[in-house]
């Protein structure tokens, strides 16, 4: 169907895919809040939420409803426009990164090949990097516009933390890129499908990326911007109702996306061992691949939560020392070694 020289099926297909990915990230983020509390309860030998629905499964809905119906308070001394802009940016940026992640191979429906990736741009990783670097604006603007010294301190902490950990993250990625020779996430997954997973070649790089992902998502042990016992709650101190909900929710979406990203770049994405020997047809294999990616992602989310309830929070100077004096040199060494090996293999 081509009307006005526009391929309408293409547009419908992409719209469906985008809404699918969006709904998926929202639902996963919603149930991550439930999972977080269940896992916390399990680790601390408690029961966790168990009143709303079977096993407390309706708890996220109850929480969401509560947040929506709470009274909305905007402090009178705050900068109103920026106060609203803050959580909006946080949420928007959190949802944008999912566009370049390949959620599966191609599906063939009625003779059309549909790629389960919203946009296969040739700069996929850089796109994610650019969007992630925007994420800090949500926190900074929100914290500053609240006109509260604790919020301001928290947003200053968040800004320096995120900028500091972006550097080793980028350096770890450069090592990966030198190996794969492509910036497109789809290519990276396809390479892993026909070879070993990248984590085998890049264990140190993966470790650095993992630590930096914790810092970029403001997750414990690096949740300094929301250290409630020193900052009264952090950058969202003055927020109430769904604006607070957006900030908290964005954190969970970020966690989901970074888990999916780690699974894609270092653990084979939608590829799983023995995938091409099963002898299944394309569509079945794509669905299985999607499930494989989903399971890998969930494992990473579980890891995020496990760490949160195990490791105590860092002090701020320790955080900075770790970032600049341990992570960056490690990432540089990793890059040098990778470069040397790549060069040696070419000759």
């Amino acid at each position, binding site marked *: 169907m081509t009307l006005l020289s526009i391929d309408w099926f293409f547009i419908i297909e992409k719209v469906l895919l985008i809404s699918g990915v969006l709904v998926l990230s929202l639902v996963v983020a919603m149930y991550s809040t439930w999972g977080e509390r269940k896992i916390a309860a399990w680790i601390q030998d408690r029961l966790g939420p168990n009143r709303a629905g079977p096993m407390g499964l309706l708890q996220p809905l109850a929480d969401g409803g509560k947040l929506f119906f709470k009274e909305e308070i905007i402090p009178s001394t705050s900068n109103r426009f920026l106060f609203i802009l803050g959580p909006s940016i946080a949420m928007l940026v959190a949802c944008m990164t999912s566009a370049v992640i390949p959620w599966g191979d191609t599906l063939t429906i009625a003779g059309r090949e549909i790629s389960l990736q919203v946009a296969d*741009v040739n700069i996929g990783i850089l796109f994610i990097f650019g969007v992630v670097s925007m994420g800090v604006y949500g926190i900074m603007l929100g914290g500053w516009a609240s006109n509260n010294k604790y919020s301001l301190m928290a947003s200053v902490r968040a800004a320096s933390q995120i900028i500091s950990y972006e550097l080793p993250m980028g350096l770890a990625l450069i090592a990966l890129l030198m190996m794969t020779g492509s910036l497109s996430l789809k290519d990276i997954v396809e390479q892993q499908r026909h070879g070993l997973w990248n984590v085998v070649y890049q264990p140190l790089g993966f470790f650095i990326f993992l630590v930096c992902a914790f810092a970029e998502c403001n997750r414990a042990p690096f949740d300094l911007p929301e250290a409630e016992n020193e900052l009264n709650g952090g950058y969202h101190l003055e927020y109430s109702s769904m604006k607070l909900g957006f900030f908290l929710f964005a954190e969970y979406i970020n966690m989901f996306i970074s888990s999916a990203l780690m699974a894609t770049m270092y653990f084979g994405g939608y590829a799983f061992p023995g995938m091409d020997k099963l002898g299944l047809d394309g569509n079945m294999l794509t669905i299985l691949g999607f499930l494989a990616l989903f399971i890998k992602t969930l494992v990473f989310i579980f890891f995020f939560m496990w760490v949160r309830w195990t490791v105590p929070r860092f002090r701020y100077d320790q955080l900075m020392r770790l970032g600049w004096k341990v992570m960056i040199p490690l990432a540089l060494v990793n890059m040098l070694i990778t470069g040397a090996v790549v060069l040696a293999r070419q000759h």
Partner: protein
Amino acid sequence: MVLSVIALISALGVVLSKNPVTSVLCLIITFFTIAGHYIMMNAQFLAVVHIIVYAGAIMVLFLYVLMLMNLNAELEPQKRNWLKYAGAISGGALLVVLVAALRDASMPALSTQPTEIGLIKNLGQILFKQYVLPFEVSSILFLSAMVGAVVIGKKD
């Protein structure tokens, strides 16, 4: 076209707004529109790097400093009148020089055909083959700037 209009409006916003934080936000919008221009010229790598470096890192530092300085209109020192005139005259002189310089410059018409040079692969090939020397020299310049910043920071 739309992008250019937004770029110009937000660039004016940078200069005209009274609140420094609004200025910074306008500047960020300007950077985004410039990145949009790069994408339209098929230079995606340049666009993304532009966003990462300028909007993602440098402007965050700007905002950071502005937030800590807590500027507002009452605290701003009153500027003397002759200072304003001097500023206007020197700005006007700069404008004249720029216009004079640009008047004679030949503007090659932008081709509508998408060029492939902005794509990351071709850009890398060109940077590391044709323009190796300028590339390395500029990296040394950056290194010296970094060392300078560390030296200044170490003083106290």
